[in-house]
């Protein structure tokens, strides 16, 4: 088995890693970097629980090899909050009651953040389409969609939740 040396930026931190060919980005994050916020729901690119931002775009990290991430910039759910303030998508989803079991939540938040980055004022149809690759079994989606619509209007730090304890 050949190992590859890679360097990459994860949540604003520069990292050097050594990974085997068949390790996915998801496995590297969870097993080698203690970033367990990103979840494994299917390992087949279908459920979206493993969604992270790679070079600004959402990907299923179970469908990306770790070795492909050399020189990449990765953001996971742990990197969403900035300077102790929750990202508006996090605040909004909590306030709207869009979190139940929470397993889909990190992936949903990453897809939503990416959506608002490329489309700052999406309508509900656009939000739903952007989230079609993030399965949720608990909420029925409506609260999440309303939350993202609300998040588009929010400035970071405007909700009571934003400061960490």
């Amino acid at each position: 088995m050949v190992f590859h040396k890679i360097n990459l930026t994860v949540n604003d931190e520069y990292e050097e890693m050594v990974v085997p060919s068949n390790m996915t980005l998801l496995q590297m994050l969870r097993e080698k970097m203690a970033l367990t916020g990103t979840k494994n729901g299917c390992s087949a690119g279908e459920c979206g629980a493993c969604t992270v931002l790679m070079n600004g775009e959402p990907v299923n990290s179970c469908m990306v090899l770790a070795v492909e991430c050399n020189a990449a910039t990765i953001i996971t759910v742990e990197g969403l909050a900035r300077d102790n303030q929750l990202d508006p998508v996090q605040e909004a989803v909590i306030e709207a009651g869009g979190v139940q079991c929470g397993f889909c939540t990190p992936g949903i938040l990453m897809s939503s953040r990416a959506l608002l980055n490329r489309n700052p004022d999406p309508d509900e149809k656009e939000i739903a389409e952007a989230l079609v690759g993030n399965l949720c079994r608990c909420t029925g989606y409506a609260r999440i969609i309303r939350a993202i619509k609300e998040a588009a209007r929010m400035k970071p730090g405007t909700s009571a939740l934003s400061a960490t304890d």
Partner: protein
Amino acid sequence: MGRASDALIPRPIGESKLRIDGRDKAIGAALYTDDLQFGNALLHARIKRSPHPHALIKRIDVSKARALPGVKAVVTGQDFPGYIGLYLQDRQIFCRDRVRYVGDPVVGVAAISENIAEQALDLIDVDYEVLEPVLDPELGVSAQAPLIHPDLEKYAVVNFIFPEPGTNISNHFKIRKGDVDNAWDQCASIVERRYRIPHIQHVPLEPHIAVAKQDELGEVTLWGSSQSPFAQRNLIAQSLGLSQSEIRVVSPYVGGGFGSKAGVSMEALAVAIATRARGRPVKLRLTREEEFYTAFVRQGLVAHFKMGCDASGRLLAMENKFYWDGGAYTEYGVNITRAAGYSCTGPYEVPNVRGDSYCVYTNHPVGGPMRGFGMPEMHAGLEQCIDELSLQIGMDPVEFRRLNCLKTGSTLVTGGRMHAIGLLQCLEKVSEAIEWGSKAPPSTPTKRRGKGVAIMWKAPAMPPNAGSSAWVELAEDGQVNVGVGGQDMGQGSFTIAAQMAAAALGVPYESVRVAAPVDTRYSPYEWQTVASRLTWSMGNAVVSAARDVRRQVLQVAAEAWGETPEDLDIVNGTVISYKSEKETPLKNLGIYGLPKPDGRGWRGGPIIGRGSFMPSDVTGLDPETGQGEKAVVHYTTGAQAVELEVDLDTGRIEIIRGVGAFDVGRAINPEMVKAQMEGGFVQGVSSALYEHLQLKNGFVQNPSLVDYRIATAVDIPGELQSFIVEVPQDDGPWGARGIGEHSMVPTLPAIANAIYDAVGIRLEGPPFSAEKVFLAMLDAGIVK
């Protein structure tokens, strides 16, 4: 304890507080079982499973697997003779002489990596003698069917389940009430139908996972995604010949359960392997594919309905026969069939009933509890028959239900009386909200629009002595810690526990914490997180424990102030006297007590409140007639209505809007109650339109998310309204009863009734896929 009083509802009862665990989940800090770190002692397990639906095991050779470098343990059924099961002990941890479904565990391997364990499976040889499988429950009951459990009569079974030895019937529940045979002659109209409800799966986003470790003393620790830590402790201990206190179960956050993580399934495999791993922890995870065919699935059902009414539309008789495709092991499924049996009339008053509910062994994946516990499967056909019957006598379906549905005091199919319920109000609310009776034109000329309604009932299905307990304590800072044994799998039980403790004690919600994760070593006992029972049962225990703390606090303060507790209160975290207007914060009091009035010594000390709740008055039901005074603790009832369109070109169904109303007694947290109603509705829509675990010759044809479709964000109705009806439950906390399951029950038949309204066809069973709807319309001549 929980006597309902409308007089004063203390805050924060009835307030939509934000989830206690919402922030943790949204920042990725909430730990699920696969997130726990065990260091490099951790071993990874994989299971070698049966490739046949039914076969005898002739020979197992694990020698090559054992020799693979990195493999640390290999176990087979030879090492574990014990049986395991919740209501019927028909299952062994690993198969010993026979495999009964494709996926049945035969060998367990633990290795230093998941990949090595997986490679080891290919080095294991198993010789089978293939047997004829049973693939249909109606064929399964025939005398010619091969016996899947020849030793059925030897299995330990609870006293309310009735297996028929020498057959594949692991439970037969009967209702014999009135005189059905003569009642048909008095019926002006009769409907007789068969419905086939296929298997579906829960699809929790987090697949099953367990980590187990046995230490040098033989004590076991099991970490897992579990709805039932205490039940797992109990059942696994019994099976391994340990005592309950020798097993500790810890369950971190659960990424969705819906029933699949109740009881015991794959967790026992992890424990068994761990007993041979020389003290190292062993992690077993199911792949998503394994989740589909080796975790619990929802049983299939073949249901025969016959029902009749008189000329005025009053139901006179029902004769309903259910053949449940229970799968290879029905240790849990037997109770589903019982619950369907004692609910077999649906939420209606029917004087003459013959009901037979058979749980049948088949060589299919293992049927287990899924949201609704038999109610969605049963109502699927029953509520369609009700519609058919009403239309047959020329009566509006809502009017028919108004006339026949259960009301306070109605006689139940099991003979007792219905407690106070708001089912009629639920029905009225949804028909008003959906604008029943009016029809909007379709959105395009190639679509047809329809409306449908359905009502439901469900009781918590559990043993008559399923108990809850709770403790409450205070810290020096005045914050409250609540210990519970019930799990929060997303439905919000921790939040509710905190709200109820806050209300009963007199402190702000924000100052209450819940002692999670549930850990059987420290948490108080809870039977299981199932049956929509926590708000009611665990709630009663929490309230009791909080009130116990309140009593002790007021006692200490009264003694310290020379007053009587009746003049004191705790308001917003401060102990106050209405008489002297003295006050003191809860800080320190709960640990150090208060000084005596004369300054010589202290009173009080560390305060712990305890609470316990167990139903006391559920009577049995007669095994021959199914009659009994009190069959269940209570019922939650409700209704849903949908408006949809059928695309004549493709058969695709689009849900335009949905409405639900459920009588929850008291909504402790209204937004969370509505969230359950919404989530259940969408899961109901998904089960109606897309979901189908396709079985062929015992093999699941679509064990992946590619081909087992569930609703996505784009598939939800354009509009969904949820109404809360509150007719208090007399023994629930402030009148509350459960809601978690009920919103998935009437959705499918409401959709089916709406499809009939739109295009005049009914299908024998779901899913109402575009293909099935289109071909049915084609065969009926509605389209070409």
